[in-house]
């Protein structure tokens, strides 16, 4: 599973992307966030405020209960601030 991190979530985690192999019990987005948080303080700090963590799977916005598959591209980022 390919992970992408953006904006202050990227800055707090300390990397822009990585390939992860979560255990089989990680079936949906919320499971993945729980698993990532346990990997270290950087992840826990970046993801603790779930309300402002937005998720895209294969470049489409999804909810926390969206199911995950091994080959997914999962992006985590704060609310977007484009435009002017």
């Amino acid at each position, binding site marked *: 599973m390919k992970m992408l991190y953006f*904006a*202050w979530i990227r800055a707090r985690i300390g990397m822009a992307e990585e390939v992860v192999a979560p255990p089989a019990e990680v079936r949906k987005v919320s499971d993945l966030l729980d698993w990532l948080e346990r990997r270290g303080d950087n992840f826990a700090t970046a993801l603790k405020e779930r309300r402002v963590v937005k998720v895209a799977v294969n*470049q489409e916005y999804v909810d926390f209960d969206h199911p995950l598959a091994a080959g997914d591209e999962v*992006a985590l*980022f*704060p609310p*977007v*601030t*484009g*435009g002017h």
Partner: protein
Amino acid sequence: MPAAATAPALTIRVQEADFDVGAELAALSAGNTGIGGIASFVGLVRDVAPHGRGQSSMTLEHYPGMTEKQLTAIAEEAMRRWPLETCLVIHRYGRLLPGDRIVLVGTASAHRAAALESCAFLIDWLKTRAPFWKIEDDGNAQRWVEARDSDDAAAARWAKAPGSTESR
């Protein structure tokens, strides 16, 4: 002189370089005399530095691939809701200075209402859906720009199709 090439219905560009507003808007109606009007919105970088406290700047980060996909989906939605002939969105990324252009939205239609309404719709929706993030530097410190509730409210007013008879 050869006839001007007809603009494609939908043009989406995500780029670091600046754009020429006049040339882009002219291209939007090239070869299509069914177009009666073009509405446009140009977003600029505002100066956030306190007076006399040095140069402020802004850096835009985005999610290559998803950005284009989302902008295309938003533009397609506009073309479903309004009778548009052509539609253009250009959004820049990278480091920008006060006064620099960030975004251009252009919509062309036979009539002004469709062009004006869809242009407002596009800029409201892209603000809350296109994966861009801004970090401001006021000359002293860097600060991630936070999403505003007013942006969500602006996007939400388009929840119902304004052109549909059901919503009127």
